């Protein structure tokens, strides 16, 4: 029985809802695939560009070596702390590779490798973690925002920058990196929303590495996947195997292309794993078992690519050795660079708080200068006395 058949309940009593009432876009194209997208080891690998893949391979090997070297430096007391990206190198490197010269990278505190892959000197990239000045490079010159430690706070910056570039008619894409844990922050939400409303040329890369320090994804979200968050902003969400650099490169490139051509933002969830502890200071045995780590080690980004390339005859022993040698050279340079004790000027403490030093800062600088001179004087006199 339909309502029409009711006595007295004719069409007259039904009002037509106002025009603004319907969904504005179709949600279906925004939804991620049910499984992370893969290329390596699948038929899609046939399309691979050998040259590009060999570059990826060399970068991955270099990235792994960078991770090892940085961790070694923490043990030698040369680095205060290092958050490793062992196991996540494919994400870090693909993120850097897909960007053009004029584009911007917005790394989180973990993403020094992405900055290095974009061309930043490893010593500069590690300035912060070394205990030297907060940011070790000129962000505008490198088009790499300062490493962001307060989680997810860099995301609205990326949106604002991309929006500004677009307003000025410049061809600039911003790629912003954040972790699975960072997606829980309000700033993630606000950035995603601004990006979509403004159709800003920005790409959000979420590295889901399974943990926020000790907290596993299951305590972080109940979403089917993190990529599903995109639909709530009217933005496509993509789910991709973060250990498959070919897949990462493809999906990121597509998102960058889309952003560049005015198609708006994309959010990408890269499913990966943090093989090492949160940082060298962390004890991962407190919150996870070996079995899980082993399962992920068997899905190693370098091995995945190496196997594919070897199987296809695109990489041989010589190629492997060349990659290793280049990585060793980088590591040696990094080691040397970090061995040189950085020279910091205490007066820098007062020089960059404001464009013009306030009277109060001048006073404080004068006090410190006097203290330092007195200390030097004392040392000098002691030296004379001996």
């Amino acid at each position, binding site marked *: 029985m339909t309502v029409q058949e009711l006595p007295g309940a004719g069409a007259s009593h039904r009002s037509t809802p106002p025009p603004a009432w319907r969904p504005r876009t179709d949600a279906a194209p925004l939804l991620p695939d049910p499984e992370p997208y893969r290329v390596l080891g699948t038929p899609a690998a046939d399309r691979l560009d050998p040259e590009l893949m060999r570059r990826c391979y060399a970068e991955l090997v270099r990235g792994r070596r960078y991770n090892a070297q940085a961790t070694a430096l923490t043990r030698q007391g040369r680095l205060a702390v290092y958050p490793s990206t062992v196991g996540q190198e494919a994400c870090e490197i693909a993120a850097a590779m897909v960007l053009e010269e004029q584009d911007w990278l917005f790394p989180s505190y973990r993403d020094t490798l992405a900055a290095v892959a974009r061309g930043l000197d490893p010593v500069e990239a590690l300035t912060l973690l070394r205990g030297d000045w907060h940011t070790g490079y000129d962000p505008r010159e490198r088009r790499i925002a300062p490493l962001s430690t307060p989680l997810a706070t860099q995301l609205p910056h990326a949106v604002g920058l991309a929006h500004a570039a677009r307003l000025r008619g410049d061809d600039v894409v911003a790629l912003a990196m954040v972790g699975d844990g960072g997606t829980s922050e309000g700033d993630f939400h606000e950035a995603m*929303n601004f990006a979509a409303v403004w159709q800003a040329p920005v790409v959000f890369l979420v590295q889901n590495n399974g943990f926020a320090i000790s907290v596993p994804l299951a305590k972080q979200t109940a979403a089917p996947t993190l990529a599903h968050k995109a639909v709530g902003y009217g933005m496509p969400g993509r789910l991709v195997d973060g250990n498959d650099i070919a897949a990462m490169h493809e999906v990121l490139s597509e998102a960058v292309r889309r952003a560049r051509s005015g198609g708006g933002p994309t959010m990408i969830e890269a499913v990966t794993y943090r093989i090492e502890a949160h940082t060298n200071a962390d004890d991962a045995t407190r919150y996870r078992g070996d079995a899980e780590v082993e399962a992920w080690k068997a899905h190693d980004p370098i091995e995945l690519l190496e196997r594919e390339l070897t199987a296809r005859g695109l990489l041989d022993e010589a190629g492997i050795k060349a990659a290793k040698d280049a990585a060793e050279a980088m590591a040696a340079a990094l080691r040397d660079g970090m061995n040189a004790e950085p020279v910091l000027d205490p007066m820098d403490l007062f020089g960059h708080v404001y*464009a013009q030093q306030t009277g109060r800062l001048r006073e404080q600088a004068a006090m410190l200068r006097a203290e330092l001179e007195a200390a030097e004087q004392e040392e000098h006199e002691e030296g004379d006395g001996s």
Partner: protein
Amino acid sequence: MTTVAVKPPAAKPATMAQALNRAMRDAMAEDPTVHVMGEDVGALGGVFRITDGLAKEFGEDRCTDTPLAEAGILGAAVGMAMYGLRPVVEMQFDAFAYPAFEQLISHVAKMRNRTKGAMPLPITIRVPYGGGIGGVEHHCDSSEAYYVATPGLTVVTPATVEDAYGLLRASIASDDPVIFLEPKRLYWSKADWSPEAPAAVPGIGEALVRRTGTSATLITYGPSLPVCLEAAEAAREEGWDLEVVDLRSLVPFDEETVVASVRRTGRAVVVHEAGGFGGPGAEIAARISERCFHHLEAPVLRVTGFDIPYPPPMLEKHHLPGVDRILDTVARLQWEN
């Protein structure tokens, strides 16, 4: 021979709201990198109409209604400033700036320093603040203590129509982030002012002696300036000749002007609406006490809001520093000595 007298543009009564609006308009006209953004700043012109007409004149890309998210607004402004724009952000009310606090403290205030000067952030954050307008909770906070305690921020607050224009222009022109505190109960205050040739932009960081006097110095800013001037008038009956200093910016703090005045008068009262405990007046009183130690005839006193959450409208008159409370306090400045 007929001479046409070139008359200076006439000063007409104008409100602080109009002066602020004009300051943004002139800044936007002069500099294409100035962008105004915030909640309802577009078609509506802001809930206080301070951005009235800007979207129409400069387009929505220059004066943008953002989504309702203060951290997002300020965070996006950071990104825009990183790219070379000069965002002017409106926070709708004092208490609604709190969601943006992390962006403010951890990025806006620190970015120049973090990058050793490579990435200054010329962002102006306009915050209507203070009470006295019958606003309900969360609409009348005097939140300047938070800003003042945050190195890297410049904190400016006008008390007159002329300063509203000049200081806002100077703030937008500043290469540093500025918290521009607008005393909302003075929005509709009027003064003769020439919108056609607005006065030269004063520098930030210079306090002004608004009234000279010899008995004691009242140190104040923003919404409390008119109250202090009124108190100074009333004090004449009691035989006190009060000097009134308008700080105009809390950071930088023009210590020299304040100290010079207090050394002259020998007595000081700091007046502001913000709560006393840990408020800006604490710093001012402490600095005066330190620098004028041998000149002071009496301890530096403070007249401030109580140390309570801002009261409901029906009780706010008891909370706000008024003429009587200021005079009562002046009376406690140990005149018998």
